[in-house]
């Protein structure tokens, strides 16, 4: 589960990871009030106004601004709230900004040099252990750093039995070139950050940048936080953090029916049981000259109801020129899915795009008969190759 920066920071804060003081606001008036409260608490005289959307690259797109007065807070909040923010991660249509995070400015002057670092915590799939990945090159796109100066990226692997050990935290602080109070603060920061990662059942923490302020504090200036969906059952308090307005409406609708759906841009819709076969079906659509319009795994319990729900969701996409249903029946019975297709046709009515149904496995012959005898404009297939050929001749 993807969450907003302000939500991620509230999780970090609960594990004593230092974050800037900040309040979220959904109107310019509330933003001014938030700025006042933040100033009262911290004594700051500048603020960062940050668009809260689920995408990176917000600064370059004009979604992050520094305000040097309450007047500027208002101006920036007005320009950001409601804007359609386009970044390299949003696609060309961008994402609508519903709220901003108003934070204390942390670039204030002081005796020490201000520095920006990169830090993330994530799973190393090869070793089955978590790693802390970090770099002196903060505030930049880490993929660019990895490509141009890989020697500036460091990794610390964590033993699951012990957690991140103090010597590892010190090594990280040394590698970042820190000394004095900044060194001590970084050691604490990294240890708290790792505890937060484990405690929150996160699947990714990316803090870019981690700031060393002019008074040698170490602060998480940004926070990209993903939570492991499979662990949400033990974090009921995080469930409210899900922002459905950030997700594709068709994907949200599919989720309600227990369907696993990912919206794509192609012209051939598909409905499949099993994730691997669903991906393979998308691939075969491409090889047949089409482009997959979606990924849709109906799961191990496909029946007439889920089939109809899947149909309705795919048909909402006006770009769809044909639909391929590919079911390999194991536990799932093909005749039930076939019945679902026939029922969906009757209840939806007037399906104008060609539908190709490939049924294989348990009760496949019965399913094919049901479809062939229904009198509907449905093309049935038995082998995967036949299905591919049907797609080719129907687009």
């Amino acid at each position: 589960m993807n969450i907003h920066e302000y939500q991620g920071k509230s999780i970090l804060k609960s594990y004593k990871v230092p974050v800037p003081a900040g309040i979220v606001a959904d109107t310019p008036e509330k933003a001014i009030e938030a700025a006042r409260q933040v100033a009262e608490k911290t004594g700051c005289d500048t603020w960062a106004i940050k668009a809260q959307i689920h995408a990176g690259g917000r600064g370059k797109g004009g979604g992050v601004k520094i305000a040097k007065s309450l007047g500027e807070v208002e101006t920036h909040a007005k320009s950001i709230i409601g804007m359609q923010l386009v970044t390299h991660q949003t696609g060309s249509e961008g994402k609508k900004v519903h709220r901003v995070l108003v934070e204390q400015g942390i670039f204030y002057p002081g005796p020490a040099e201000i520095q920006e670092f990169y830090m993330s915590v994530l799973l190393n799939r090869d070793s089955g252990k978590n790693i802390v990945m970090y770099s002196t090159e903060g505030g930049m796109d880490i993929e660019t750093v990895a490509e141009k100066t890989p020697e500036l990226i460091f990794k610390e692997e964590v033993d699951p039995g012990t957690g991140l050990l103090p010597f590892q935290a010190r090594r990280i602080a040394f590698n970042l070139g820190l000394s004095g109070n900044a060194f001590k603060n970084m050691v604490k920061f990294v240890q708290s950050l790792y505890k937060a990662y484990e405690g929150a059942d996160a699947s990714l923490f990316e803090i870019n940048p981690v700031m060393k302020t002019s008074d040698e504090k170490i602060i998480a200036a940004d926070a990209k936080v993903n939570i492991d969906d499979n662990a949400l059952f033990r974090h009921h308090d995080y469930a409210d953090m899900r922002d459905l307005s950030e997700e594709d409406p068709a994907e949200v609708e599919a989720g309600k029916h227990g369907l696993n759906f990912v919206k794509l841009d192609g012209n051939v819709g598909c409905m499949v049981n099993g994730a691997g076969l669903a991906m393979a079906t998308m691939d075969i659509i491409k090889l047949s000259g089409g482009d997959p319009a979606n990924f849709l795994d109906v799961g191990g319990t496909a029946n007439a109801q889920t089939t109809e729900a899947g149909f309705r969701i795919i048909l909402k996409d006006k770009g769809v020129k044909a639909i391929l249903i590919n079911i390999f029946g194991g536990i799932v019975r093909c005749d039930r899915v076939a019945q679902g297709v026939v029922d969906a046709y009757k209840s939806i009515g007037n399906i104008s795009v060609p539908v190709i149904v490939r049924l294989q496995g348990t009760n496949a012959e019965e399913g094919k008969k049901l479809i062939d005898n229904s009198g509907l404009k449905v093309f049935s297939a038995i082998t995967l190759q036949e299905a591919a050929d049907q797609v080719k001749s129907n687009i």
Partner: protein
Amino acid sequence: MSVLINETSKVLVQGFTGSEGTFHAQQMIDYGTNVVGGVTPGKGGEKHLGKPVFNTVKDAKEATDANVSVIFVPPAFAADAIMEATDAGIPLIVTITEGIPTADMVKVKNFMHDKTSRLVGPNCPGVISPGFGKVGIMPGFIHSKGKIGIVSRSGTLTYEAVDQVTKVGLGQSTCIGIGGDPIIGTTTLDAVKLLMEDDETEGIIMIGEIGGNMEAEAARWIKDHATKPVVGFIAGQTAPKGRRMGHAGAIIGGKDDTAEAKMTIMKECGIRVVNSPAELGETMAKALNNKN
């Protein structure tokens, strides 16, 4: 000989009396698998499907001499079930459960690293050796005893491969569903090694998907050690970057995670890579003909 499952396999079902456990235990018994009992804490002493139920894996192992355990325990308790079976010294643990938190699997992997048990899965269809039995949820009737070993991260896509192999008349020695999660026990390479050393297996079908390094790791080993033809397919050639495609482990993070990158390295290592999943069976049949 088949690998992992043979005539000496005695299978225990953890989560025996639950709905999934009950349904699939019955299917396994019907297929001819030697199911010797099950574990459901608190129901020890009862009988279920005509087999004894035990409170702990240790009790069950002592009473039945079980050497395989298959786990249908719900995700919140599945990691504990795996570690209990490991602690009891069960040599082969097949975990079907989907949706185990990644942090739990980090602990499991760490717990198992100095123990002798082998884990298959989680989030997998299980293992089947036609003629000896099945430990998992795959439909038995599509399989036929034969000479092709199959290793796959997917469930239904494996069935597709099995069906094609059956139709070209080759049949299967053992099919190993290794699972679609980011952390799994037996890797693609582990499974390929087992099948490569198996006398009965004459060809290997290796089905991968986007995400992770497992297929590349297996391909490099195959390059130096292959003694029989390997046919490969990677699902997700059309998958977008950064989106999870159903399986928790099927996500393109970096450029090595893509289907294209994996297929390239597999080809370089001498694997017969098919672009279309419809060509797995025929390609294997041709590969074996060329060899003979």
